[in-house]
């Protein structure tokens, strides 16, 4: 079992959802791409102010 498959299966089990093996395999194939997109978010020099709250838009922001 690949690292991605193991990671995906563990996260799904933690969430108590139980897809078929082929669905887990499909999600595992998507997982590295998802992680790359997420890692890209950490490369943005984000500000120290609070993250966008529930009502995120301010006039003139």
């Amino acid at each position, binding site marked *: 079992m690949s690292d991605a498959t193991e990671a995906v299966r563990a996260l799904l089990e933690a969430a108590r959802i139980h897809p078929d093996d082929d669905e887990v395999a499909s999600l595992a194939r998507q997982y590295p791409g998802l992680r790359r997109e997420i890692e890209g978010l950490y490369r*943005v020099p*984000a500000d120290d102010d609070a993250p966008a*709250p*529930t*009502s995120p838009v301010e006039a003139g922001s």
Partner: protein
Amino acid sequence: MSTLDADAGAVGTTEGLRLAPLLEQAAALRDGTTTSVELVTACQAAADRIDPLIGTYIVRFDRAALEAATAADEARARGDGGGLLHGVPFGVKDMLVTREGPTTAQSVVLDPTWGDQPEGAVVSRLRAAGAIPLGKTTTMEFALGYPDQEHHNWDAGSEDDSRHRFPLPRNPWNRSHWAGGSSSGSGNGVAAGLFPLGLGTDTGGSIRIPAAFCGVSGHKPTFGLVPKSGCVPLGFTYDHIGPLARTVADCAAVLDVIAGPDPSDPTSRARPGGPERYLEALQGGIDGLRIGVGRSVTADGPWCDPEVTACFDQALGVLEGAGGRLVEVDLPYWDELQNATFVGMSVEAFAWHRSMLQEHWRDYGRPTRMRLALGALISGADYVQAQRVRRTGQRLVGELFGSVDVIVTPTLGTVAPLLGGGRADRTRQLRSMFTAALNALGFPALVVPMGFDVTLGLPTSLQIVAAPFEDSTALRVGHVFQQMTDWHRRSPALAGT
């Protein structure tokens, strides 16, 4: 390309009016050219003919709509029908509660009692303004995913009693192509003249994408400007409700009715500086207006087809000809903002669906459950980082509006895709959506038709973005564009059948 001009056909008749913009239908009602009963009847007759071909409706409210139309005509006869939308019909995406019928979110999973709650502010306000809901329109399951053969009735017009099967929303310009999603039926219904206004919801582009693919106008308002109560949530902090209609003026008239805070949605708020009168604000032209052109990551990027780029360049010429000053702008962290929407929306959607996924995994369509499951693979820190990126993007893109009044991009880099495409097609489609970053930002975005891919005969679309709560500026630019072009007046040949 087979088209029918909206002015063509039975001019002066109610059937001819069916393809006219909402404001023209409203004017005809006011001056007595037609009645609401005639208009609703014409829309229902057209739906009898056309809906089986393009999958607009999940359910129609024929009897209730005719009763409401009769009441509207009687009120007008008493001198009590002065509202701009009095007696005008509209379609409602089946993510929104209506009192006439159930809300399914196009899924067998949603508890039928969910729709027993009171109508949300938007439907209530339209109803109070005299507009008449004709029925609930198709979407993707829970406004996610893509058309699949498990979940949709692939053979138009055929009988299929599978409980998983919903109408397949086809593109009225070419039925082999998708109508777009997720406000699919609201988009193809307007294009086909089944109603002049469709309500949609937009979490990553779901108003703008079907509007673009079907060749109509669509507006995602500033987050918070329009209350989103009575809506099945997808991404709580990314969801918006807005209109799909034939013209920008129609969208402005609707926004006049649906904008403004409501206690039913704590994220809704008053527009800073006071309420705007959006229809009136269309006047004045765009002479000297600074139009930021965000093309490096959109029209000039790898996900934009040459035909779309060519239409975009022509649209820029139109805006420049109207007096707009074109200014190149770089859209900061565009890809990251697009991803911030997908990451944040996935987590918020998974939070709402988690219990139902545990109990009803196999009752969801496969594309939907697989898409929702991605939310389980994202950590709390990842979600917060997406929110930090949103805030940074709001500041940086907001700063652009110090030097421009609006920013324009193509809405999408492609025209409507063929139904039944594979994973590669879907990946390209996802990457060519230049819409999702605006959901992370919450800024207003209007889309208008800007031409056609002449080979495929399918519409292309221009996106006009403004600063928060400056929806009127985007609408004014779109209105001027439509005064100088006729793309929005074209209808697919199927609409006249």
